[in-house]
């Protein structure tokens, strides 16, 4: 059970959050211009990394805000949290 440091509320139990999968996947601005393959890439393809992964989480039973999390999936340690729209911390790239 993680402890997640919501950037708006502080440290809370994982049960207050829901996970929203991989972060930094931007919805294409002009979907109609894309081929089936390109659209499928956006729609379906997700990384499943053993190691450092960038994820979206929602404080669904709290402030309802979405934010980003850097998590090492090999030991579940959360290395960093940052708000939507902010750049991912460079040291984990």
């Amino acid at each position, binding site marked *: *059970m*993680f*402890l997640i440091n919501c950037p708006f509320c502080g440290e809370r139990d994982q049960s207050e959050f*829901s996970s*929203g999968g991989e972060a930094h996947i*931007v*919805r*294409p601005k*002009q*979907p*109609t211009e*894309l081929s*089936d393959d390109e*659209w*499928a890439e956006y*729609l379906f393809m997700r990384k499943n990394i053993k190691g450092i992964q960038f994820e*979206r989480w*929602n404080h*669904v039973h709290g402030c*309802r*805000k*979405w934010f980003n999390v850097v998590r090492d999936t090999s*030991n*579940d340690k959360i290395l960093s949290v940052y708000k*939507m*729209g902010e750049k991912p911390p460079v040291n984990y790239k």
Partner: protein
Amino acid sequence: MPNYRIHKTEYIDETKRVSFKYDGKTYFGYEGDTLASALLANGIHLVGRSFKYHRPRGIVSCGAEEPNAICQIGSKKDLTEPNVRATELELHEGLEASSQNCWPNVKFDIGGINNFISPLIPAGFYYKTFMWPKSFWKKVYEPLIRLSAGLGKSPTEPDPDIYDHKYVHYDVLVIGGGVSGIIAAKMAAKNNLKTLLVDDKKILGGSTIYQNNESIKIDDKLSSEWLKNEIQEIKKLSNLTIKTRTSIAAYHGYNFLLAKENLTDHLPEEKKKNKIRQRLWKIRAKKVVIATGSIERPLVFNNNDRPGILLSNSINKYLDYYGVTCGENIILFTNNDSAYETSISLHKKGIKNLIVDLRKSASSELIKQAESLGIKIYFNYVVTNTFGYRKINSLEIMKLSEDGNTTVGDKIKLSCDCLGMSGGWTPMVHMHTQSGGKLDFRDEDQVFLPKENSEDQISVGSCNGDFDLENIIDKTVNKINKFLDIDNQDYQDTNIICSKENDKRNIWLLPNKIPLGKTKCFIDFQNDSTAKDIKLALKEGFRSIEHVKRYTTTGMATDQGKLSNMHALGIIADTAGVKMGTLGTTTFRPPFTPLTFGTLVGRNVGKFFEVVRKTSMHEWHVKNNAEFENVGQWKRPWYYPKNGENMHDAVQRESKAARDNAGILDASTLGKIDIQGTDASEFLNRVYTNAWSKLAIGKCRYGLMLNEDGMVYDDGVTTRISENHYLMTTTTGGAANVLSKLEDYLQTEWPELDVYLTSVTDHYSTASICGPNSKKILNKLFPNLDLSDENFPHMSFKEAKLENINCRIMRISFTGELSYEINIESKYGHSLWKMCIEAGKEFNLTPYGTETMHLLRAEKGFIIVGQDTDGTMTPSDLQMDWIVSKKKYDFIGKRSLYRSDTIREDRKQLVGLLTDDPKEILEEGAQIVSDVKSNPMDMLGHVTSSYFSPNLNKSIALAVVKSGKTMKGQKLIIPMENKNINVTVSDTIFLDKENKRLNA
């Protein structure tokens, strides 16, 4: 009656005699006893039959690792509990226990016949034997296996006990109250860290608390005396909480641990009343110190499972803690020094004993002490066989060869009434590995040790592989100072003297002249697997420890292999010729010891099991005899039976009334989202498939929401309240998810939009009145409101007052009838409803429930998201292309609507079905085919909604069928268990295609 209680100890209160029943017979013990120690004091070793061969089995240990002494406690239907370890159960007045896994009784057991046919029960027996014929599985094999497996009986009635949950936060959690745990807790607490110390026993002190050997001393005192003093000291510390009878069940990530506290299991019946039985502690600790100790290993030799064969250290504890001797003529069989402590203690209490030691020779303080007391020691000998049916009465030993692989010389037969075995010690690394920690292997004494790699968790004491007291204390102090970043000096000058073990010899499977196939060398006592089974599994090609474990069932019983896993690994390594450390171990999973369901669910039982949401009108529905349906957490009226009507009759009546006169539905549960902001219209444009910019203020529009994959996600009517203010409705079940999804897009994809979302589902109550009389009822309720079609047309909205209370009225329809939805602040919902009912009396207003609502909308071919759709239906599949804007550049899911897969013409599409026999009602979920002769039948789709329509006087159904759009008029078949039903594909709209009734 024999009495094996031979001396007084401070832990047994001989002034408090306790009577208890075991297998129907009454015995006596004392306060302080466990069931096991009380049985042993009465001379009872035989406590059960083994799982597979039904061999007589006795008490083996004194703790959580016990594989044999597993009892059924109590006999009441609601309070009986299976699989309780007698070694952990504290004796109390009125305790009723019985042995498990034996029928008709423990002394004469029918399953014992398995012992003689055991060559027929090899490893993988269940997999190999019960495969064929297939039809036998359910009726013959499974009941038979379950009967003879006999792992206790479940209670058949609800548990009347009270259970509790508690969340706590600590700086430091110390698991285990032995010598290292006590030191760690004291150091932490004295350095201002809020500390919790838990121990599963009744008192602290671990195995040091009854230690009484003169060769082991701390500050010139017996180690037990020194420790008692320490315990007194820590009890005074204000920021240390001590919880005894509390065991850690699970160690999850982020130092989140679950502990079970036993509060009343040790109390007599009358003192248990109205008290919490067990409490589940949910602990968050910044740092965790694991001091869980170690478990003595059995030795693997022929017939090592007879009653009267125990772990050597357990014999010691029964003697020095409980004052009970396990025999009068005891042999100790060992490969290490710890059995010598037991031997010396027995000797001092006048119990005859001798030692058989695997080692060629050994020297240490303890051994010198034993020798000087004249205790006979057979060095370099091995036990090769034991005798005695219900209890051991003698054994054979033989000399070991130089390499230890075989035996040499003649057998020596020795008589005894008890055998203690000690195969060394296994550190309890369960907690460490549960927390994600890795292990190292130490070859010298063949133990897995915690690999330190965490800042938040540390192992100290013998669970860290430190076995002698000097080592334990010194290392614990150093490690804790470092781990907690403190500089505690309390133990700086502590002077420890202890015997040091110098010689080791470990043989996992002890040699024997008898071929392995003819021996019974048990590894897992509880699941009855032997060394032979492990070897057979290897022979049959199994290599991975996880596979061997499952194939032989070693380590898979309720004790999870606490005594057996290491031996299984060792034998696999030796047989395969690999180093044991390279094999890895099986995974230790929570719970460490079994938990009751009661503890896990706590108070969340009965009406607290799940949150129940009720509308403001709920009380009225109850008074008016409604049957309720669960929709998500909501209780919704399903139908209102009158005068003993069944569901069908009630729904037929309600449906007819709604179309002939008027019906009223509690629609309060529909999700409501308040949308405000200058970009609200643009936002709706992007989330719905149709266009919203041109919706006039005061108008309503139906919208369909897709997932980005193009599949229908939710639907509902949205009303434009003012320029920048909309009220969206969603399905009852989808409300929370829709809000989440909308928030997601707003916050992450379109943060530039000025839009605010608020869930207002609970803020408003909704009464929906439909039918040809609805306008008259509305007129009565709102005499000043102009209800003319010109002023208040279909799909529009008005604000009105009901006795000065503001209402929002939407003229929208989910039934196809002229229909109004009145929304009012929830606190007035009940009054609104009653006023509607009152006003509707003269117009035959009939309350109807969800079932009638479903029927009415099906007559009109309106879909229900989640019933007629299942996450694989596009708008086009639903024949709803009309609602997908061609002009809009983008909306959620648009691009997916022309992926190669979504434009396939043979997708499953929504159609209507009419049965050839209009009285025949189809079953929802039934499969649809065109040809019943092919095998297997080609399934074209399934029925999604099906009703008997009283308004059309025939059966109607909605279904999804491959290429259904092109099949109108075609005949299809619904094959049922005992008949085939013929149907014809029809339009999805069965009633009033022209929508005349909307303006009736």
